[in-house]
């Protein structure tokens, strides 16, 4: 009986109904459109700025040149912004993941009293906040305003990620904990040597989320810094590049090979390269992570 069903199922799998064709074609077109967004900027970044300006560059670079990238790479501010963003992302991953996991361990521990109170104090901040002026004031008072650490310290604990990690910890069998407890291992030791290695998949996901957030954010730079030597970030730098390009003045200060537009496209591509490189490898982690997160319902 079940073999019959199996066979029937099998046959259905490979017969393309006209509805299937519509679905496949629709999805294919949508994917091509999405990819085109990227392609459009790529060809722009490799185009000759002056020739690009006359329009019609849609599928292939015109007057192919690397000059746009040359302008970006010769800009000292680009390297400052790049360095700050790399530093910020690396430091952010390290501190945020470790601290979030540590607090998550405490929050999942049976030794914590008044857990409900902690939980609600944490949760409330996800739905209510002081807003930007009070935050600005606080950062000024404690001296974080316009320092590199303004990117790191306020976000060292993410409540959302903490709950996800702590839910994962709750799924780790008690017997492991009890065995370690019998051996006389302290809490921090148990966390570092048992829970941390076991939670690698969820930690990898959280680390990736943190990395993308740090790499992509520019609001913090606008609000809480003066975009100086140690606080300008790559996205902020790009934002200015793009604003300049869409403004009225087209870059007459540049050479014939480039324009403000094509330079901004080159900047976009350079900033996207790290994400494009790691994306194929980490894509499944993102997917896995969101599923872990969804378990809490």
């Amino acid at each position, binding site marked *: 009986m079940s073999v019959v069903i199996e066979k029937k*199922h099998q046959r259905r*799998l*490979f017969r393309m109904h006209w509805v*299937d064709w519509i*679905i496949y074609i629709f*999805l294919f077109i*949508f*994917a091509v459109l*999405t990819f085109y*967004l990227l392609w*459009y900027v790529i060809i*722009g970044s490799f185009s000759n700025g002056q020739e690009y*300006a006359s*329009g019609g*560059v849609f599928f292939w670079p015109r007057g192919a040149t690397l000059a746009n990238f040359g302008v970006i790479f010769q800009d000292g501010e680009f390297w400052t912004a790049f360095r700050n963003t790399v530093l910020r992302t690396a430091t952010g991953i390290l501190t945020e993941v470790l*601290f979030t996991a*540590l*607090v998550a361990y*405490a929050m999942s521990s049976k*030794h914590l009293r008044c857990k409900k109170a902690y939980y609600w*104090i*944490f949760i409330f*901040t996800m*739905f*209510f*906040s*002081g*807003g*930007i*002026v*009070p*935050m600005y*004031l*606080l950062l*000024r008072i404690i001296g974080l305003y316009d320092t590199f650490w303004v990117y790191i310290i*306020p976000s060292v604990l993410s*409540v959302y990620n903490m709950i996800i990690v702590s839910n994962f910890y709750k799924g780790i069998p008690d017997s492991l904990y009890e065995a370690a407890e019998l051996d006389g291992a*302290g*809490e921090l030791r148990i966390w570092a040597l048992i829970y941390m290695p076991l939670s690698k998949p969820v930690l990898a996901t959280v680390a990736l989320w943190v990395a*993308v957030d740090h*790499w*992509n954010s*520019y*609001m913090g730079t*606008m*609000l809480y810094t003066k975009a100086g030597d140690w606080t300008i970030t790559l*996205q902020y730098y790009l*934002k200015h590049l*793009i604003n300049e*390009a869409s403004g009225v003045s087209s870059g007459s200060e540049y050479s014939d090979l480039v324009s403000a*537009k094509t330079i901004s496209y080159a900047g976009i591509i350079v*900033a*996207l390269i790290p*994400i494009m490189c790691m994306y194929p490898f980490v*894509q499944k982690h*993102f*997917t896995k992570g969101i*599923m872990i997160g*969804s378990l809490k*319902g």
Partner: protein
Amino acid sequence: MDGAVCRKKRKKWDVRNWTIFIVATLGLLVIIVFHYLPMIGLLLGFKDADYSSNLLGTLLFGEWVGFEHFTAFLQDVDFWNVMSNTLIVNLILLLLNFPAPIIFALILNEVRHKWFKKGIHIVTTFPHFISWAIYGGIVIALTDQTTGIMNPILNAFGLSSDVDPVYLMDSDHIWAVLIISSIIKSVGWGSIIYMAAIASIDPELYEAAELDGVTRWQKAIYITLPCIAPTITVFLLLNIGRLLSNSFEQFNSLQNAVNLSKSEVLATYIYRLSFSSRRYGYATAIGLFNSFVSLILLVASNFISKKVAGRGLF
């Protein structure tokens, strides 16, 4: 010495409890400093803090103005313009951007070739990881009047012309641009959660239905959709709670002087008031109003969902 007393009074308050207590409290401290302390700063909304050069002094000793800022912005035409932008854009997003990933997941679920499904998913998820600064830059590039590709496409449909190209980033078109670009950026990523929910549906349900000769359409409507309804509810609640909130970066990156009258939403308006106009008290009052209404929306929709659907967010 104290430990002995402690141990006697509350049972088993040992070194493990202490470690855990200290760690959890350390986390709590960070949250209190960076999330609860600023809430004290909300008092600026009730003080004469506009144009103040010493905000801390104003917060501590400034003159109370009561609800003056609140009555002021409630009577301000600008505020209501921003408010209606925020509400209308978010309602359209709720109507289109919220169901889009669900429909996308349902469609993707009909794909039988695994490689195709995976490929589509990888490509359509990618825009989620592009920053708004960059994505905004791409949108600006596509809609450029002379070099963008959008105008030739519109030309082909007779909606624009080379002589008088449509400027898609102006106040008439910016909502459409915002919404379409939002959907393209988030539909792939948003569908992951629904695909996970669909994957966890018991296959026996489908097999039983197949034996009854049910069509694919019916399977999607009567099996898949009801099975992922709890997930949909949770996300709907979260979205309703965000009716007054927008991604600052999204709107900031697409704003320009021409479309500002339609693209200014509460998030960007509060920023402009605080840091360009330095109207700290006024801006804080609007921010407080925004947070407060959002909280009420969330609690109310959660309450209704619990009554009607039997489950909520918390």
